[in-house]
């Protein structure tokens, strides 16, 4: 039954989303769980033994693209949707299959019948090498034009974190207005986005005073920003 399916496993759901980027451009990136897709992709590849580096490359490219789309939405300050609530339904216990011995009908005769075919195909293989059908698109189609700034986001985050740590001498609180003094509007926005990324990776905390609208940045172990506005 399995041999009737011609497509490699990764062209089937759920992994196909990584390989059909015309669809990829239309999806909401929040609906895609990259970690799940890549983990199961690797598991399945290992399981089936279909080790194909081009497929892995495309999967990686597509994942990067999805990540990028998520980042772009973050740049537009779009809130990620809340995680879907798992559907409630009665979940029955597993149905264990009874173990039954079953004689199978394959005999040595069947083995020899197919051997003939196999030997023929081995001979023809020696004569002509089959050219594998191109199932994956060239990388240029996959890789979209990427903002240089976004590519370097990790580097920028590191740079900002270092300078913040320097400002507070290891740990402490700094006001956003102090940080962006002298910056252009665009530089300030970029700095703010980097702060969001840093906050997301839990390397610093952000807190905004509702009255003054000042944003406080807490670095290095001070967890006061999570409290109920008790910053002194």
């Amino acid at each position: 039954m399995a041999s009737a399916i011609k497509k490699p496993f990764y062209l089937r759901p759920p992994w196909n989303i990584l390989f059909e980027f015309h669809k990829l451009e239309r999806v909401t990136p929040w609906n895609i769980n990259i970690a799940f897709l890549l983990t199961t992709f690797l598991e399945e590849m290992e399981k089936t033994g279909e080790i194909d580096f081009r497929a892995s490359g495309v999967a990686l490219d597509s994942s990067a693209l999805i990540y990028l789309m998520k980042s772009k939405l973050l740049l537009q300050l779009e809130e990620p949707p809340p995680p879907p609530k798992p559907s409630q339904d009665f979940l029955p216990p597993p149905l264990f299959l009874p173990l039954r011995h079953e004689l199978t009908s394959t005999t040595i005769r069947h083995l020899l019948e197919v051997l003939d075919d196999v030997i023929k195909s081995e001979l023809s293989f020696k004569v002509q090498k089959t050219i594998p059908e191109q199932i994956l698109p060239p990388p240029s189609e996959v890789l979209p034009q990427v903002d240089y700034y976004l590519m370097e986001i990790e580097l920028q985050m590191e740079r900002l974190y270092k300078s913040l740590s320097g400002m507070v001498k290891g740990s402490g609180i700094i006001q956003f207005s102090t940080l962006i003094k002298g910056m252009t509007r665009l530089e300030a926005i970029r700095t703010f986005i980097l702060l969001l990324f840093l906050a997301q990776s839990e390397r610093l905390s952000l807190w905004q005073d509702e009255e003054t609208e000042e944003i406080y940045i807490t670095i290095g172990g001070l967890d006061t920003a999570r409290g109920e506005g008790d910053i002194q």
Partner: protein
Amino acid sequence: MEASILQEVKGTSSNINELKGNLEKTLDELALIEAALYVAGRPLTLQELCSVLKTRSKNKTKKIVKTLMQEYANRNTALEILELKDERYVLQLKAEFTPHVRKLVKRPLLSTGPLKTLAYIALRQPVPQKRVVEVRGHHAYGHIKLLKEMGLIAVERKGRSFILKTTDYFADYFGLSHDISAMKRELKRIFEDFSKQDTPEL
């Protein structure tokens, strides 16, 4: 006088042979049914068993199967013969032995995950694939593929969605009715028994 005794003795011995013959025949027939159930590894209908015995008498075949069932029940054995709905009979391993010998089975067996997905599909069928994935999580895609490959479920396209159902093979495997609503009732009873067994505190 002597002749008549001889006659009598001859008569007796022919009766004994006849009896012995009948007994042997019954034994052979028992063994034939056993052979049939052993090699099939699936429920056999009374019809199929009749054809193994080369008889048309369903009653006779039924009597022999019942005798064999009784014999299995009396022996201390790991195997059991069950009677399923619609006069079908199956030889299988008693469930309590499964955990001890599962690792010796060379056929690919299903693990608990796919078996749970199968149970859900069986109970909710016909059910959209989307719904199954919602309830069972993303891993259900792999389970569905596996169950399809094993011929336990069938997938039907309906517009833009896929509808999942169990197959007749599934029903046979578990000895359930081929009629979907009857099967669901049977399944519910099985699940109820199962949860009673499993959680006596409830």
